[in-house]
């Protein structure tokens, strides 16, 4: 008897576990939203989700934090396999062609039409169509700009003034300014003239500033070897020859954090980082801070960054409806303004930017406006599924080697171009 009872108990326990997945009908309609910000921006996001839920009773958004962009991307993929993906999430532009091609994302055209959203109200350079070069293909809107940014140059105005240095507008001026701003004590550097994460995003900016492009004009071949090499050589020289630039250690966003910390602690006079940190840096620096365009070589240029909202095809119609309601609400001028002012991301709504409120804000806080103005020099990204692999596998992990002195710039770029072409060819 005892044995049988035990077996029964074990079986009952197994069945209970299997049935534990809750199935209930709930009012209001709820949709999951996965986001990936840390620190201050996370707080702002959570506040906006709360505000949305309080603003109406029909829909409810359940936001949950999923680590940085790349960690979140991994979780999304894993969640697709296990069928636990959220209705909406936000994703970096570079990953979008791959995700779209895989067929997991919903086209947003029907939602746009049904709810009267005007695509032209989005700031052109920040919208999906402004971000991508489709090489003549026709792609529907499947992504709505959310937190969109550009890299800009931040400088310690007190340091520049003290040394009589003007804000640099060209690579040569940047080099001269950084030389003057670097403070040495023996072999120890007390203040670095310039610091930037050795990262795909900034390299991409320098590539276009030097007059290069990532891919050939038809988007079929990699074409960054020479100009990308020029961009990388610039850093290699500043770090190793002139010793006026600090290479922040750490991978991905760790290096970004080091850069911000050094700037705040006045260990670096000029840095490149995202406009998204305007709010954070303004609140934390104890000196006069300015922002400016990244200096030009042949031209001013810079990629846009940040993320877009996207919707999962696998979500239920009700979840999609709720998710879209949130996306639409976030893009309305009032929310777009509040989001931008509280973070530093570029305001995505054209009517919002034209509003008296935003104009007044820009006047009082000119550092927030620089990225918006720099948008006219923004370069497009190729709409190629290979883009994310080129970024993550080919460029990002290999930029550091020449700066450390492990490889030459030529070797690095030649190998990278070959690897990129292999990926483009589907190898």
């Amino acid at each position, binding site marked *: 008897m005892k044995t049988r009872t035990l*077996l029964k108990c074990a079986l009952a326990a197994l069945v209970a576990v299997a049935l534990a997945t809750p199935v209930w009908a709930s009012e209001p309609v709820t949709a999951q939203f996965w986001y990936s910000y840390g620190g201050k921006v996370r707080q702002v996001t959570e506040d906006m989700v709360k505000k949305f839920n309080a603003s109406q009773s029909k829909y409810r958004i359940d936001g949950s934090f999923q680590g940085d962009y790349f960690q979140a991307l*991994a979780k999304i*993929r894993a969640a697709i396999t296990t069928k636990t993906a959220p209705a909406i999430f936000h994703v970096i532009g570079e990953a979008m062609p791959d995700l779209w091609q*895989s067929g997991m994302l919903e086209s947003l055209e029907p939602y746009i039409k049904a709810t009267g959203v005007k695509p032209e109200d989005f700031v052109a350079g920040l919208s999906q169509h402004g971000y991508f070069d489709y090489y003549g293909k026709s792609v529907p809107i499947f992504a709505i700009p959310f937190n969109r940014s550009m890299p800009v140059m931040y400088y310690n105005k007190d340091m520049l003034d003290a040394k009589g240095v003007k804000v640099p507008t060209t690579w040569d001026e940047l080099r001269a300014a950084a030389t003057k701003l670097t403070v040495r004590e023996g072999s120890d550097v007390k203040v670095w003239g310039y610091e930037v994460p050795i990262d795909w995003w900034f390299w991409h900016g320098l590539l276009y500033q030097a007059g290069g492009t990532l891919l050939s004009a038809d988007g079929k071949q990699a074409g960054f070897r020479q100009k990308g090499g020029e961009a990388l050589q610039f850093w290699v020289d500043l770090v190793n020859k002139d010793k006026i630039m600090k290479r922040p250690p750490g*991978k991905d966003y760790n290096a970004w954090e080091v850069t911000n910390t050094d700037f705040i602690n006045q260990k670096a006079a000029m840095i490149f980082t995202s406009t998204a940190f305007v709010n954070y840096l303004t609140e934390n620096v104890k000196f006069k801070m300015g922002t400016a365009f990244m200096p030009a070589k042949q031209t001013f240029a810079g990629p846009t960054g940040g993320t877009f909202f996207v919707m999962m095809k696998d979500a239920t119609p009700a979840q999609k409806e709720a998710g879209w309601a949130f996306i639409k609400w976030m893009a309305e001028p009032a929310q777009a303004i509040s989001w931008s002012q509280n973070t530093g991301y570029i305001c995505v709504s054209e009517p919002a930017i034209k509003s008296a409120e935003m104009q007044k804000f820009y006047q009082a806080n000119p550092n927030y406006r620089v990225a918006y103005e720099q948008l006219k020099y923004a370069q497009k990204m190729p709409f190629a599924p290979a883009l994310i692999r080129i970024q993550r596998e080919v460029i990002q992990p290999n930029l550091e080697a020449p700066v450390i002195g492990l490889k030459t710039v030529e070797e690095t770029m030649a190998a990278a171009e070959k690897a990129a072409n292999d990926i483009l060819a589907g190898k």
Partner: protein
Amino acid sequence: MASLPSIGRPKRQTLLGYALILPSLFFFGAFYLYPVVYSLYLSVFDWDLVRPMRFIGLANYRDLLASAEFGEVLGNTFRYSLGVVVLAMGIGLVLALLLNNRTALSSTLQACIFTSYIVSWVAVSLLWIWMLDPQYGLVNYVGGFLGMPPVDWLGNHRIALWSLVGVTVWKVIGYPVVIFLAGLQNISQDYYEAADLDGAGTWQRFRYITWPLLTPTTVFLFITLTIATFQGFDIVNIMTQGGPVHATSIYVFFIYEQAFHYFRIGRASAAVIICFGLILTLTYGQHRLFRRNVHYAQVG
């Protein structure tokens, strides 16, 4: 498998036994055996988690073995493993010999040494990121007083891996100390008394009594530490993410990177299988190597 009686129904007791181990057997199967077998299956496919899987035979294994990065990763893993095993066992043995008495001071010191072993890897890694920071860190600050130039512990590609070795040894040192102490306390005092009568010195006592009778412990530590270091991950993921360039990319981190940074699930699975084979071979080899040289004390 337990052998069942060949005639008649299995005994009630046997059934009860199976019922009792069913829960743990279930978890063992679901979370250990099944993933291993499934990895083997995945390793012959090209899969990015989203698109349909594509069978590619042994291409993942070929790509891995041909890639320069994989070679670097193997080299890093062996260096890291060897560094940690040798240092942790060497320092651990010395500490254990010093602490091998039953005084209150010894117990307190043992407890202190063991605390770092209990603390989570995440906490230890974060702590040491700060300690090793080239500008604001305590290590360079103290080093400065001793006239040492500032060192970029985690940013310099020649030093970074050894910094991780150092942190790992600091973290795990309590483990070999405790195991060695247990081994030492198992050695009967009779041997030492006899040696004293024969006029043996400290070194001779160690060389001819302690060391040989400690070999079962040594072998155990060697194998467990080797396996543990081959499975190292958190410290790299938190402190260096494998950088600068690939200088600190060790095996499990490489697998993680392939799977969750690059979404090359097949290639990551192939690396898992190679790792499995590698650890198996190493363990077996160590076992063979030591079998002849292990001395077991007669108890009783």
